[in-house]
């Protein structure tokens, strides 16, 4: 836990009437800086120290050291030179409506692992100063203890970001950050591949990498098509059961992951449950036995996937065709639960794991 949480400073807790907002913003930001300085002086948090050191790191370390005083010029690899400088201010649309970004963000905080992967895929990795605790990909992300599910506004504000990306406006984080003058872009979990690729483009536009992001999205689309073509021709979609936890939690084809698996010619056995059961229904053992899926995917978020022997030991499961034929595929739970650029990896795993099943 952050030590800063304990004394609620007026920074976060006090809400002013909307009219007074613009005048108050200036003084408030000064206050935020002062508050940050105080925390630093007090030397009170490892968090605070991390926040001061990290911004230096990404600019110097990953790319060549040529760009010493580089505000806008994208020295990043993929971005064509035409893309960045002209655009700002830009207006993009997130779940929190139209968001105007005044200048090319230099201090981005991501509170969603999927959005972090998109930021790096778009070529904005160097502008990212902090990510939440689940943003473990790509390697070398500036990991912090921040949470996107229970966002701590003060900790975020202390990093003085100029753009925060988050997958949901939880606990009123958007309004709270707006109150301290920080722009937030909300991009919720994607429902489809198109959704995800649109978000990638939005992220690119918001960070000054519009062309690179669009190109990345197009490349992902091409690769998806190529991989999907590798799947054998089948008369009907192959029924699968994807187990997320040992309580029978699974997915339907209506979810994002179900969408990706559908590209591989697969259909969830939970689809018959109907919309009332939601996208992530819980199946009973009996329902799985009755459906007798051709393939079983395992994507336990806690990483404790059952072994093939564990599955066979469940009552009746040794008779399932997937278990008998060894068609049990373990998916990377991070890849399977995110809607980032690695959805290509997810499709690859699904296609390759079912290639021999006709």
């Amino acid at each position, binding site marked *: *836990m952050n030590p800063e949480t304990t004394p609620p400073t007026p920074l976060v807790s006090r809400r002013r009437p909307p009219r007074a907002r613009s005048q108050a913003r200036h003084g408030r930001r000064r206050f935020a800086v002062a508050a940050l300085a105080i925390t630093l002086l007090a030397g009170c948090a490892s968090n605070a120290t991390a926040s001061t050191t990290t911004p230096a790191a990404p600019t110097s370390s990953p790319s060549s050291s040529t760009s010493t005083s580089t505000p806008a010029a994208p020295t990043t690899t993929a971005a064509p030179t035409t893309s960045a400088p002209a655009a700002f201010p830009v207006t993009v649309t997130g779940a929190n409506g139209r968001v105007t970004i005044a200048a090319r963000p230099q201090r981005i905080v991501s509170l969603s692992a999927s959005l972090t992967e998109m930021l790096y895929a778009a070529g904005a990795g160097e502008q990212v100063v902090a990510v939440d605790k*689940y943003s473990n990909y790509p390697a070398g992300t500036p990991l912090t203890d921040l*949470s996107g*599910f*229970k966002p701590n506004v003060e900790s975020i504000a202390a990093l003085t970001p100029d753009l925060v990306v988050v997958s949901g406006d939880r606990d009123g984080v958007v309004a709270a950050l707006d109150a301290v003058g920080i722009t937030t872009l909300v991009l919720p979990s994607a429902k489809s591949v198109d959704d995800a690729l649109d978000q990638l483009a939005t992220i690119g536009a918001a960070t000054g990498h519009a062309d690179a992001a669009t190109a990345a999205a197009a490349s992902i689309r091409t690769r998806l098509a190529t991989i999907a073509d590798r799947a054998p021709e089948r008369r009907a979609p192959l029924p699968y059961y994807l187990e997320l*936890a*040992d*309580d*029978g*939690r699974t997915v339907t084809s209506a979810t994002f992951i179900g969408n990706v698996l559908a590209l591989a010619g697969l259909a969830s*056995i*939970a689809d*018959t*449950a*109907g919309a*009332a*059961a*939601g996208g992530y*229904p*819980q*199946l*009973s*053992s*009996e*329902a799985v*036995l*009755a*459906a*007798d899926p051709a393939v079983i995917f395992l994507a336990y*978020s*806690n990483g*404790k996937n059952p072994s093939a022997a564990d599955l066979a030991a*469940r*009552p*009746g*499961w040794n*008779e*399932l065709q997937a278990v008998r034929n060894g068609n049990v595929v373990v998916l990377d739970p991070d890849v399977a639960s995110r809607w980032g650029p690695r959805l290509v990896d997810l499709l690859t795993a699904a296609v390759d794991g079912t290639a021999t099943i006709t």
Partner: protein
Amino acid sequence: MTAPAPPIAARRHPVRLPLAWILGAGAFTLAAGTVAVLFGPASIPAGQVLRALLDQLPGVNVDHGLHGPLAAVVTEVRLPRVVLAGIVGAVLATAGGAYQATFGNPLGDPYLLGVAAGAGLGVTLVLTGYIAASGGLAATAAAFVGAGAAVVVVYALGRDGDEARPTASLILAGIAVAALCSAVQAFLLQRDDQAVREVYSWLLGRFNVAGWRQVRLVAPFAAVSIGVTVAAGRRLDVLTLGDDEASALGVDPRRTRRLVIGAATLGTAAAVAVSGLIGFVGIIVPHAVRLLAGPSYRRILVLSAFGGAGFLCLADLAARSVLAPAEIPIGVVTAFVGAPMFLVIMRTRSARR
């Protein structure tokens, strides 16, 4: 409670429990269990289900015509699930009745003394990795230990309350310990967002992964718990007169309470460990029985065992049928079905008075 019941034990002879009532309650339980076994997401014709069951009887060999994955569905998946639901329902209902008797409180509930919060904390500690444990039964064991530990602490802290209100301090200690456990649990879950869903799903009750293993685990505890509480029925009737009168009649109130609370808690902890938290059964079934059969705990406890078993079998049937093949958490169903059912019983009974 509408009209104050006449003191039961004041009558010379204790209230009897007619055999016909037991048979009737047993028939209800059996019927509910049978219906629950006949239906499920794997739509197997009733005839085949019955033949598969007959085939299991020693010395009987019937061709049930079920092959492959379906061969095991009736005997290895559906039957243990129904049996487990029945056992858990019986335990929770008798435990609830026993708590209502010992605490003289109509809101008595099997989770009154911190069982739920203790089990929840135990499960959370394992699922968030603070207690390194693995294997299929780690969470089950943690729930049992957590539930037991919480009640032991509550009892140690609350037993020496003031003489005038012997159970009030126990209840208060239960509330305090439960609050403490919940706070720690909430803190741990806040640190680990990913475990939230697992813990939540665990807490909402789980029969969908039940097998004979869970039945074997809970059965001995259930037998002891139900046996002890039912046997104490008459003494609990005497206790409703008040501690002084009960002592005068040769019933030691403190000992009786300790015995009944201990037995009810043991059964509840075991039930929670194998099936998660299933609310409402323990509080509603004894009250429904009381409305139908009168205020004697001799009757209430025995009939609650049957009623709870049948009720939970039917609730579980609904849980796995309504959205089949998806499941509804059993705890949701018990409240959703049980609350209106109870209100109907309550209204019709009071109208007849």
